[in-house]
C-alpha cells in the first residue's frame, strides 16, 4: 500500500511537466507560422513585392514542414487544422508531438517506479513499448497475447495506472487525426479528454445522449438496510451507507447533529447501476459518462431535486459524498453556482471518481479525491496515476495502490472502504478531521429513488384508480388490490357433468357450459409478484357458467373475448387457495367464500408452465408441462360468481398485458394424495391426470381486483 511517489518518480513527473510545456511552446510557434502563411496581408501584398513575398512564403512553408525542425507542423485555424489532419493521415509528425510523446513516456517511467510490474512483466512491457514506439502491428500482437494469457479484464486492470498515457501516446502517434485533440488534452493536462483517444469519437456527443431533467422520489429502505445504516457521522459511516443502498438507483440524505449541536446534512451518492446502458435511472452507463464529461447531467439534476425535497433550512451546511459516477455527480452539484447559492456546500469527497477537471463554485468548499491507481474509472477523464500536473492544489488527493489489481474489484465501494479502514489510516483520519462538524449522531435519514425524468405513476393509467379502505379480520386493506407485475395461467378442462351439476346445485347458476357432452371447468393460477398487498400466489377452481339471465352455451364463447365490464358469463367458484394471510382475510370481499391457505408455486416460461398447490407432504395438485405454440391474445379479464346470501356475488379481475392462447397444450393436471377438500373435488370432477382443452397464459401483466358485487338471481 503506498500513496507517496518516491523522489525519482517526482523528478520524472516534473520533467514530464516541463516537456509538456515545451511541447506547447513549440506548437504555438507552429501555429504562429501557419497563421503567417494564411494571413491575408501576406498574400495581399504579393503584387507589390512578388519576389520578396515568394521568398518569405517559401521560408514560412519550410519552417512548418522541415522534418529536421518543427516537423510537419501546420496548426491552428481551419486551413491549418485541415492540413494537420491530412498530414496525420499520411503519417507525418511534428516536433511538438514528439516532445509530448517523450513527456508521456517519462510519465509512464514515473508510474513504473511504483508499479515495477509494468516494466518487469515482459508481456506488459512489450505492449507499452510497442504503443510508445508507434509500432502498430507489434502493439496489436502484444495486446492479443496479453488478453489471451490473462483475459481482457485483467489486462485492463494491469494497464490501468498508465492507461491514459498509453492511449494518449497511441493517439498522438497513430494516423487517426480525430483523436489528436483528446491526446493533447491528456498529454498537456489542459482539460477533459473531449473524445475517445482510440477512435476520436466525441465523448460529449455520447454524453449528450443522456437526457432528462432528473427527478427524485422518496423511497423506503428495507428493515435490513435500515439496520445497517450508520447511526454516527464519519467517512467510513457515510461510505458504508453508500454500500448499503448499493447501485440500486437510489441516493440517501442524512442529517447529523455535530459536536457543536448544529444539525448539518450529508448527501451520499452511489455509482453506476448495472443493467442496460440507458434505463430510467440516471445511474446508468450513460449517466456515469455524462456526469463525468458534462457539468450537469440527469444524475446531478436528480440529486438537486432530492436535496430540494429533503428541505434544508436556509444557510444549512451540506457535505457531498459520492462513489464512482456518484462522485462526479456530486462534484457537478459543487460546481453549480445556483445550487451553491442556495446551500452551503462545505465538503466534497469523491471516491473512485473522474473529477480532475471539475471545480467547486465556492472556493471555500473542501474537496477530497480518493483513487486506487488500478481503478480504470477515475482515469476516464484522461488523468491517472501518471498525471504530472497539479490540477487542483487545494484538494486533498489520495492516489494510492494496493495488491489488488483486478478491476472491477478495486473499483468497488467495499474495496475502497476496506482500504481506507485498514491500509490508509492517515488519509482516513485526515478526512475525518475535516469532517469534524459532521461527526455526531444521525438524526434523520431519507432515501431517494432517482430518475432521468419525472416518472409517471407506476401502472399509470390502468392502476391509477380511486381506492378505499376495507376492514378485514387481518386489518384494514386498501381496495382495489393493484398488481403492478404478475403472471397468470388459466387451463380449461372437460369435467364429469354429474359432478359439476352437483357443484351447481342450488346456486341459481348454470347449467355449466358443455363441450362434447362434458362440462367446462377452469383452473386459474397466478403469481402476483408486486401488488398493493405485497407478493402472493393464488389458485381457483371454477365451473364455467353462462349469463345467469340468458342461459345458453352458444353465448359464452364470443363472450370470452370481451372485457369484464361487458361479460355476463363467468366461473362459479368451487375452491380457492392463496398463500398469504392478508389475502385470505380480504378474499370474502373480493370473490366470496373462504379460500384455503397452502403453499403455492408458479412458474411460467417459454418451455411451459408448472403450478403446484400444497406442501411436499400434502400435495393438492400439480399442473405442469409444455404449453405448446401460442396465439397472441389481448388482455384477459377474469369474471366469476360465488354463492352469496339470496343470490350470487359477481367478481372480476381486470388485467392489462399481452397474453397467449395455447390451443394444443400438453399440460397435465395431477391431483396429489392429499385429503384436502380441493384435491377431493378435483378427483370427483375426474380431473386427476386430465389434459386441458385450452390454456391462456400471461407472462407479465398488471391486474386489479375489485370487491365483488352481490346480484339477485331470483
Amino acid at each position, binding site marked *: 500500500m503506498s500513496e507517496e511517489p518516491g523522489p525519482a518518480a517526482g523528478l520524472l513527473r516534473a520533467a514530464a511537466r516541463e516537456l509538456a510545456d515545451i511541447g506547447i511552446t513549440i506548437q504555438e510557434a507552429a501555429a504562429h507560422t501557419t497563421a503567417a502563411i494564411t494571413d491575408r496581408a*501576406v498574400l495581399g501584398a504579393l503584387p507589390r513585392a512578388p519576389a520578396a513575398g515568394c521568398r*518569405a512564403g*517559401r521560408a514560412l512553408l519550410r519552417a512548418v514542414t522541415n522534418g529536421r525542425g518543427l*516537423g510537419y507542423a501546420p496548426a491552428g485555424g481551419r486551413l491549418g487544422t485541415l492540413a494537420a489532419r491530412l498530414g496525420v493521415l499520411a503519417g507525418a509528425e511534428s516536433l511538438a508531438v514528439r*516532445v509530448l510523446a517523450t513527456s508521456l513516456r517519462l510519465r509512464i517511467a514515473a508510474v513504473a517506479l511504483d508499479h515495477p510490474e509494468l516494466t518487469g512483466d515482459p508481456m506488459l512491457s512489450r505492449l507499452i513499448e510497442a504503443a510508445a514506439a508507434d509500432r502498430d502491428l507489434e502493439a496489436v500482437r502484444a495486446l492479443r497475447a496479453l488478453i489471451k494469457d490473462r483475459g481482457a479484464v485483467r489486462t485492463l486492470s494491469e494497464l490501468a495506472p498508465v492507461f491514459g498515457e498509453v492511449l494518449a501516446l497511441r493517439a498522438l502517434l497513430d494516423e487517426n487525426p480525430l483523436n489528436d485533440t483528446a491526446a493533447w488534452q491528456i498529454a498537456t493536462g489542459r482539460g477533459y479528454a473531449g473524445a475517445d483517444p482510440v477512435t476520436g469519437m466525441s465523448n460529449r456527443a455520447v454524453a449528450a445522449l443522456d437526457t432528462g431533467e432528473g427527478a427524485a422520489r422518496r423511497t423506503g429502505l428495507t428493515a435490513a438496510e435500515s439496520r445497517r445504516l450508520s447511526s454516527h457521522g464519519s467517512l467510513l459511516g457515510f461510505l458504508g451507507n453508500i454500500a448499503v443502498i448499493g447501485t440500486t438507483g437510489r441516493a440517501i440524505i442524512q442529517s447529523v447533529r455535530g459536536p457543536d449541536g448544529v444539525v448539518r446534512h450529508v448527501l451520499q451518492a452511489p455509482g453506476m447501476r448495472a443493467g442496460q446502458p440507458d434505463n430510467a435511472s440516471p445511474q446508468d452507463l450513460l449517466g456515469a459518462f455524462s456526469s463525468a464529461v458534462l457539468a450537469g447531467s440527469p444524475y446531478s439534476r436528480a440529486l438537486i431535486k432530492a436535496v430540494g425535497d429533503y428541505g434544508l433550512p436556509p444557510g444549512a451546511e451540506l457535505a457531498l459524498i459520492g462513489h464512482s459516477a456518484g462522485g462526479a455527480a456530486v462534484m457537478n452539484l459543487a460546481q453549480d453556482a445556483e445550487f451553491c447559492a442556495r446551500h452551503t456546500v462545505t465538503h466534497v469527497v469523491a471516491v473512485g471518481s473522474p473529477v480532475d477537471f471539475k471545480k467547486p463554485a465556492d472556493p471555500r468548499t473542501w474537496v477530497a479525491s480518493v483513487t486506487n491507481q488500478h481503478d480504470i474509472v477515475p482515469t476516464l477523464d484522461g488523468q491517472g496515476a501518471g498525471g504530472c500536473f497539479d490540477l487542483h492544489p487545494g484538494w486533498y488527493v489520495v492516489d494510492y495502490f494496493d495488491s489488488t489489481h483486478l478491476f472491477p474489484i478495486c473499483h468497488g465501494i467495499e474495496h475502497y472502504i476496506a482500504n481506507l479502514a485498514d491500509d490508509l489510516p492517515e488519509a482516513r483520519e485526515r478526512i475525518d478531521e475535516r469532517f469534524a462538524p459532521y461527526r455526531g449522531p444521525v438524526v434523520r435519514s431519507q432515501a431517494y429513488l432517482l430518475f432521468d425524468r419525472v416518472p409517471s405513476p407506476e401502472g399509470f393509467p390502468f392502476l391509477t384508480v380511486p381506492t378505499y379502505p376495507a376492514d378485514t379480520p387481518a386489518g384494514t386493506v386498501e381496495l382495489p388490490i393493484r398488481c403492478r407485475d404478475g403472471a397468470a395461467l388459466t387451463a380449461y378442462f372437460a369435467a364429469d357433468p354429474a359432478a359439476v351439476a352437483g357443484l351447481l346445485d342450488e346456486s341459481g347458476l348454470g347449467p355449466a357450459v358443455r363441450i362434447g357432452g362434458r362440462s367446462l371447468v377452469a383452473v386459474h393460477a397466478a403469481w402476483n409478484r408486486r401488488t398493493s398487498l405485497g407478493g402472493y400466489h393464488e389458485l381457483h377452481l371454477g365451473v364455467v357458467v353462462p349469463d345467469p339471465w340468458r342461459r345458453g352455451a352458444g353465448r359464452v364463447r364470443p363472450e370470452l373475448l370481451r372485457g369484464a365490464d361487458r361479460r355476463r358469463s363467468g366461473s362459479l367458484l368451487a375452491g380457492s387457495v392463496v398463500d398469504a394471510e392478508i389475502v385470505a382475510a380480504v378474499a370474502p370481499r373480493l370473490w366470496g367464500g373462504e379460500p384455503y391457505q397452502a403453499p403455492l408455486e408458479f412458474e411460467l416460461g417459454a418451455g411451459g408452465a408448472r403450478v403446484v398447490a400444497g406442501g411436499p407432504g400434502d400435495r393438492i395438485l400439480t399442473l405442469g408441462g409444455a404449453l405448446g405454440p401460442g396465439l397472441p391474445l389481448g388482455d384477459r379479464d377474469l369474471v366469476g360468481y360465488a354463492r352469496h346470501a339470496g343470490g350470487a356475488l359477481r367478481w372480476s379481475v381486470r388485467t392489462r398485458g399481452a397474453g397467449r392462447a395455447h390451443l394444443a397444450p400438453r399440460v397435465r393436471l395431477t391431483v396429489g394424495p392429499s385429503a384436502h377438500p380441493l384435491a377431493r373435488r378435483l378427483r370427483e370432477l375426474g380431473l386427476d391426470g386430465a389434459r386441458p382443452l385450452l390454456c391462456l397464459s400471461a407472462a407479465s401483466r398488471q391486474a386489479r381486483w375489485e370487491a365483488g358485487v352481490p346480484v339477485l338471481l331470483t
Partner: protein
Amino acid sequence: MPLESETIAAQAEVLWSDARALTECADRLREIEAGLEAGGAAPGWLRASVNAHLAACAEAAADLAEAAARLTHYAERTGG
C-alpha cells in the same frame, strides 16, 4: 498599403520571438536531461530522445529566424 506592411512586420516580430523561444526550449531540454541524470532517474532512452529534440529545436529556431527575416524584408518592400 502601410496597413499590410505593418501586419506583415507584426507577424515577423512574433516569429522572431518564437525563434528565441525555441532556442530557450533547447536550453530547457538540456536542463531536464541534466536534472534527471543528476538525480539518477533518467531512463536509458532519454538521452537519444533529448538529443533528437535539441537538434530539431535548433533547426526549427533557425527556420523561424529565417522566416522572420524574410517577412521583415517583405514588410519593408511593401511598406514603401
